[in-house]
């Protein structure tokens, strides 16, 4: 042991506590079970994410001997401090601050997309705000809502908590959003107040995930889905991503980490989808294609081919794809050319499956339920449609699905479990773990190992690839061939690994990247975690639980995958597989045009 950690003793609301030096009052209070209200503070400790601009001033408390009130999120504990978090002075100050925040905030709560899940609305309720005295002196900002393929920004509703700015810049290093202008016009916006579409935004949706108000919301595609379901000429099928089943229950009051796979299937069937399928099937297919590509590159590399690009980068995450197209276009031949599970599913649904059930692709509507907002953009990419008809027509988030189920007054808690439909609902445990960081590469290892060595795996769980650390690495023994694996989640972490690839320092054979902290389970389309990383951990545990219960846990053992190759695709990376299941990437970096 090194030297003892220095601690300080203080009392908060008459309770004594000893905490390490440098602990904020806010955190010390939390240890005592005192939840101080806040609008801007956010802390995901296991993911090293913290936002404490001390900006909202809701979390103030009285500190004996101090003249003004202290913002507890950014005031450190000191020896002998006496803190009171709910004196009348504190409560009055919180109300006044709240009245100021609300003075230039629209009061259209009835029709706001955030209504019901809005932290600002909840705070106004909590503090018992009944009038907004300063409103007649405040100026409303003049920002027009900005709609991109995934995200809507309504800056009138921005309260400058700057959580989105922290996510976009510090965590994701995307730098699309920054605090701009001053006074009533202050807001968080892209450069030159351009639309998000013209910024470096990757649509990862982490800004939406942490926004306490209706300033940042997803583009709601449920009206289009409803329209398709109501149209008797359309066959409407749905695919659900692995991370959705591990979080959907939270929107219905279930404990985080509750798996609702069977209930979700039952709900989707009750909503009127003609076939309820699983993106996990697409994930299994991704592993067949990506795993084969990885082995092919490694074999060529071992045989001395110097043109082969290693490491192979996974390509299932659309936020990540947008990121490297923007920031690393020089490396666009490094990622796997395999499409994402969502798009593989769509491509097979609108070819093989459409032919099977004798429906024209124009009359087959493919809907995806995703934990993600970038998936909305991905399915709108031009290269993923045939004659203007998309492979995946609409992508809706876990949150949108929850709202949809509630609208249909279905009681998710009490639905009987149902099974996915065949054939595109068949999947293995390998497909399920795609939802958590490390899962894609673990699934790939399970299949690539057996393909490469011709031997059965002794143990299926590659626990060395799991965990929540931002950048991880492990070496997997492929029967004498040591395979170096890198894993990053969060785009800032991915950037570190990419910088090494660019400079030639990277020693990895394969790198898995997921744009969102925690992987898809922490996606921008999931129910809000409100800064509680226990929720993300519980979702990950649920994913691995579902995997361990599956009778089949390796993608290449999925009987329908085997059949699909026999009947339709030939073999992995065949010409037909390439045509349907692979894609290419584009250079999206802004260039300086030199005027003549």
């Amino acid at each position, binding site marked *: 042991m090194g030297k003892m950690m220095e601690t300080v003793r203080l009392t908060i609301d008459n309770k004594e506590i000893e905490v390490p030096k440098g602990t904020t009052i806010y955190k010390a209070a939390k240890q005592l079970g005192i939840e101080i209200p806040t609008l801007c503070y956010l802390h995901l400790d296991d993911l090293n994410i913290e936002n404490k601009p001390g900006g909202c001033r809701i979390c103030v408390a009285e500190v004996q001997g101090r003249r003004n009130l202290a913002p507890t999120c950014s005031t450190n504990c000191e020896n002998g401090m006496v803190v009171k978090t709910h004196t009348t002075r504190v409560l009055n100050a919180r109300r006044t601050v709240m009245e100021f925040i609300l003075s230039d905030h629209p009061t259209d709560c009835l029709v706001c997309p955030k209504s019901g899940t809005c932290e600002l609305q909840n705070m106004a309720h909590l503090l018992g705000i009944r009038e907004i005295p300063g409103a007649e002196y405040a100026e409303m900002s003049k920002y027009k809502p900005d709609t991109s393929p995934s995200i809507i920004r309504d800056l009138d509703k921005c309260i400058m908590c700057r959580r989105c700015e922290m996510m976009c810049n510090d965590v994701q290093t995307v*730098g*699309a959003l*920054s605090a*701009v202008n001053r006074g009533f016009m202050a807001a968080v916006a892209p450069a030159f*107040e*351009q639309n998000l579409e013209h910024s470096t935004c990757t649509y990862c949706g982490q800004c939406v995930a942490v926004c306490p108000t209706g300033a940042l919301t997803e583009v709601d595609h449920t009206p289009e889905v409803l329209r398709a379901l109501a149209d008797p000429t359309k066959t409407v099928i749905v695919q659900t991503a692995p991370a959705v089943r591990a979080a959907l229950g939270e929107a219905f009051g279930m404990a985080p980490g509750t798996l609702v796979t069977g209930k979700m299937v039952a709900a989707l069937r009750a909503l009127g989808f003609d076939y309820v399928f699983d993106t996990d099937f697409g994930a299994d297919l991704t592993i067949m294609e990506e795993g084969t590509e990885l082995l092919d590159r490694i074999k060529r590399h071992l045989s001395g081919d110097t043109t082969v690009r290693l490491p192979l980068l996974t390509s299932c995450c659309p936020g990540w794809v947008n990121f490297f197209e923007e920031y690393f276009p020089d490396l666009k031949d490094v990622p796997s050319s395999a499409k994402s599970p969502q798009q593989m599913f769509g491509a097979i649904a609108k070819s093989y499956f459409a032919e099977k059930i004798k429906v024209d692709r124009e009359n087959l509507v493919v809907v995806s339920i995703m934990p993600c907002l970038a998936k909305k953009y991905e399915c709108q990419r031009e290269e993923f449609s045939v004659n203007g008809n998309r492979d995946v027509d609409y992508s809706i988030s876990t949150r949108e699905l929850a709202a949809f189920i509630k609208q249909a007054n279905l009681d998710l808690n009490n639905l009987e479990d149902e099974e996915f439909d065949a054939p595109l609902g068949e999947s293995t445990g390998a497909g399920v773990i795609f939802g958590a960081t490390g899962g894609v590469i673990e699934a790939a290892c399970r299949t690539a190992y057996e393909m490469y060595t011709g031997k059965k795996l002794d143990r299926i769980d590659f626990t060395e690839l799991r965990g929540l650390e931002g950048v991880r690495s492990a070496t997997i023994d492929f029967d004498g061939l040591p395979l170096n694996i890198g894993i990053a989640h969060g785009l800032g972490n991915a950037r570190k690994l990419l910088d090494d690839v660019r400079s030639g320092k990277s020693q990895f054979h394969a790198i898995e990247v997921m744009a969102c902290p925690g992987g898809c389970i922490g996606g921008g389309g999931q129910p809000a975690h409100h800064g509680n990383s226990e929720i993300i951990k519980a979702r990950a545990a649920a994913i691995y639980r579902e995997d361990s219960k599956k009778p089949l846990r390796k993608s290449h053992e999925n009987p329908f995958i085997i059949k699909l190759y026999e009947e339709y695709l030939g073999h992995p990376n065949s010409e037909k597989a390439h045509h349907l299941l692979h894609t290419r990437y584009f250079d999206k970096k802004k260039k*300086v045009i030199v005027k003549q």
Partner: protein
Amino acid sequence: MSSIKIELRQEDVNKIKEICTSFNNDPQELINILHSCQEHFGYLPAEVQEVISSETDVPVAQIYGVVTFYSFFTMTPKGKHPISICMGTACYVRGAEKVLEEFKKELNLQVGQTTKDGKFSLSNLRCVGACGLAPVVLIGDKTYGRVAPDDVKKIIKEYE
């Protein structure tokens, strides 16, 4: 707002690069880089900010955030004769606001704007350190002290 094209003359691109290099392309020096670029170009159009961004790796949104935060920086070109009215405490209490109103009326301009012919631009600043002369107006390098609203017409005449 739709997408901004980054169109610049090669010599301007070179100049921005030269300025950034002189500050070691250091993101910590952003404000100094912006100062130097504004001194050279007279203002900081989007294109200039984009090039500074690619040279320093500071996201252009953050650069725009800095430019819109500090009133010293401007994204509109200054006029041939930039007019600055001091709104510091001393000038303010001695009637600077009325002087500013007079300039606005005479030139039909708002603060931060430039006349269509590019001749005059109007801005306010905070204390030039000549409080004894309050209220103070600067036009280019020339300082006018004890300016009364009635003097404004005459002052503008000097530049017509």
